[in-house]
């Protein structure tokens, strides 16, 4: 009863947050000045008629919302509009249909463009997160286990260093190290591999993933190591660990059966909070390694002022992070039996 109410509560909250993001996302892009139909394209060959055709195509000829002037937010705009004819409601309506608009640049539906890239990003982030969590846990456990020894100081020091590295900078450094050592430095696969057997294609993708994943792993494992270590030290100094020790349970089993699950709790929270930063990391790593993911879509959209893509990517990222957070929350509920009472 309590648990299901907690789940319901959290889910409702996530939905509310998503709605907030949707509205924020719409107005963020409308308040600020500039004519998207012209942005980034400075070409004398574009005649006024062509520009107007572009505006119609992207729906920018419609009023933003009643009484709102997008070019001058302080001024009151036209209030005499059918609300359903405003950009805001068209946007909301389209969103529910899964329509994120049309890219200024590619003229392709944004949802289609981003869904291709979403999977690439999930692949990269997934591999990076899993590796960094595993390595972070391993080093965190080692550090806690061998607390105040050389192993501990070493792993903590390296973790702090990793934590301090700017992602893109590390990416570039590794790109150069990697290219000198024969690793592929761009793209997701060798072009023209599609005629090869499937396992070779996968191997090729894995091979291309090496440098971006390595960058990713280094960036995130530092923090996970530190969290895991301190959380495990906390747990291991709890009384129930002493109880277990007094019971004659071996140190390894204490760690496995009594400490890890409890120590995972803060890590789960941090991983969830980190998902936002994960995206930041992806934007940088993908653009360094030309990885065709969501992050490099954001990067390119920023460069080309492709607002529908930027807007769509933002919604997609925000919703994914919110959902992932929800998932983490629910995992937490599962991991910690106390939650259902609180």
């Amino acid at each position, binding site marked *: 009863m309590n648990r299901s109410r907690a789940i319901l509560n959290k889910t409702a909250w996530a939905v509310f947050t998503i709605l907030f993001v949707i509205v924020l996302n719409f107005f963020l892009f409308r308040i*600020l*000045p*500039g*004519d998207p139909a*012209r*942005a*980034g394209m*400075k*070409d*004398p*060959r*574009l*005649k*006024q*008629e*062509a520009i107007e*055709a*572009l505006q119609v*195509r992207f729906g920018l000829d419609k009023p933003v919302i009643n009484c709102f002037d997008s070019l001058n937010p302080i001024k009151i705009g036209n209030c005499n509009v059918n609300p359903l004819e405003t950009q805001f409601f068209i946007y909301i309506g389209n969103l529910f249909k899964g329509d994120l608009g049309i*890219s200024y*640049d*590619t*003229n*392709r539906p944004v949802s289609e*463009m981003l869904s291709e890239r979403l999977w690439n990003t999930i692949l990269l982030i997934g591999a990076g997160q899993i590796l960094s969590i595993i*390595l972070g846990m*391993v*080093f965190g456990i*080692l550090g806690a286990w061998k607390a105040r020894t050389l192993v501990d100081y070493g792993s903590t020091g390296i973790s702090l260093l990793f934590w301090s590295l700017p992602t893109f900078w590390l990416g570039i450094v590794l790109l*150069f190290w990697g*290219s*000198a050592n*024969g690793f*592929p430095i*761009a*793209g*997701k696969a*060798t*072009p*023209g591999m*599609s005629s090869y057997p499937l396992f*070779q294609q*996968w*191997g090729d993708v*894995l*091979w291309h*993933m*090496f440098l971006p994943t*390595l960058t990713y792993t280094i960036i995130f494992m530092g923090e996970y190591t530190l969290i895991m270590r301190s959380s495990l030290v906390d747990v291991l100094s709890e009384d129930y660990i002493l109880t277990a020790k007094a019971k004659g349970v071996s140190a390894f089993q204490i760690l496995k059966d009594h400490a890890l699950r409890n120590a995972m709790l803060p890590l789960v929270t941090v991983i969830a909070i980190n998902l936002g930063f994960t995206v930041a990391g992806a934007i940088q790593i993908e*653009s*360094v*390694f*030309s990885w*065709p993911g969501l992050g*490099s*879509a954001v*990067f*390119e959209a920023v*460069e080309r*002022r492709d607002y529908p893509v930027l807007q769509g990517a933002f919604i997609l990222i925000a919703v994914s992070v919110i959902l992932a957070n929800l998932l983490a929350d629910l995992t937490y509920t599962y991991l910690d039996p106390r939650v259902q009472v609180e």
Partner: protein
Amino acid sequence: MKQKFLFVFLLFALVLSACGTGQSASTPAVVRIGWGGGPDTLNPGMAILAVEYTIFELVYDSMYDLNLDGSFTLSIAESATASDDGTVWTFKIKEGLKFHDGEDLTAEDVAFTYNLYKDTPEYPYLNGYYTTYFDSIEATGNNEVVLTLTEAIPNIESQLVYLYILPKHIWETASPTEFDNVTMIGSGPFKLAEYVPDEFVRLAANKEHFATPPKVDEVIFQTFDNPDALVQAIKTGQVDMISSLPGTAVEGLKSESAVTVVTGAPFSPGPEDIIFNQIDPENCPVDEGGLCTGHPALRDRNVRLALAHATDKQKIIDVVLFGLGTPGFTLIPDGLGVWFNNTLTDYEFDTAKANQILDDAGYLDTDGDGVREMPDGSRALSFRINWDSDNSDYPRIAELLKEMWAEIGVALEPQAFDADALTAICCPTFDFDIMIWGWVSDPDPSALLYVYTTDAIPYGSSETGYSNPVYDELYNQQQVTLNFEERKEIVWEMQRITHEDVVYIIPYYAQAVQAFRNDRFTGWIIDQSKIELTDVTSLVLIEPVR
């Protein structure tokens, strides 16, 4: 532990990929090209980016081919004849042309294509610019296309060169704007084999092409987001050619014996310009949102002239382009070949002379703060200077200008703007003093010459607000002068006038820099004044090094 783990990961990847890389002698000749972009759309009508046109040039044919020297040759037609008044053109299409899917390419397809471009207002270029003068297009039974124009134009070749011939049997049922054209059936020397957006385009040779069947089997264009990665890729042989590279890398790459670096005028040059807001308040396009807040001193040619004399273009070229450029005069770059007026002489870099000009014109530093004031003492010669924040060269130019112009008592307030915001303050708002920006060019000079006209002011194409009735008249004249030599004279004169009036300072015409592996393919065209190795001209000629 970590080492071991990485090792396992590596080993796994190695084993899997090793199976894929074992190449034998009989493998097809595949040219791998690294470039900084990639096509966003394969629909020629909707295309905007230069890289998209690169692909279209390889996959499609059009009425004319643009040569590296700027001249045109007839391609799919045997003959082109114009009526006496120049408004009706008849093209006799060659027999036996085939699309990649085996269907015939006939006059029907050409007429269909031209009508499609003409009747689709959503096409930003192919409709808006290149078909402006089209009246009607018909195919005759004789495999001829009859193109009727609304008025005679001097540059039919450049109007038709980018109008790629599409197969009617595919496009007649497709939505002109929504069609994604991923099968991309054309008739050109290469056919599309595989397209993965933002990753690569793989083209296979069309060995049956009527004019220029390629010698290689495949060309792959791979997208690199990072210019440094491009350079690494050619060094390590991951690619055979790169279509651009940072100027800083040129020296380093030249020392690699397997890599040849080539420089030259770019195929489609994009002039960079230092823009002076000199709009006359009377011309201010108030209805279009014109604010016209420019510094009044910039309306005085003397000031602009002094600034031109105070600009050390060679230093800008050295620092910004690492020497890979030549000083510029007007918006018409040397890359436009015959249209470029090569008789102009630049204002020599002479700070003393610049100071003298300002002194004579009455701009003196009356309050002794190192910055001159207007002759009436009302304002200091302190200008806002803005640029597009995406460009990493512009801030360097601004920095250099600030130092150079300080020498003649002119102060600058630099501020980068995002492209949107820059458009918003630029034109037709004219809410700035000086800007650094660039233009895209067309093989025909007309588009860039239009920028200087009074007509362009309310449309936002004119960034300077320059208005000169003599020039406007010449512009209209060159639009209707059919004789090539006469038109060239007018175009040259127009360049002379605008250079004389110092409408812009053009800091440089940048050179294109490309590089290829000389141990892989041979036959690249590198002896022309223009350099474009991704162009069809090179790609159909090259063959593997034995």
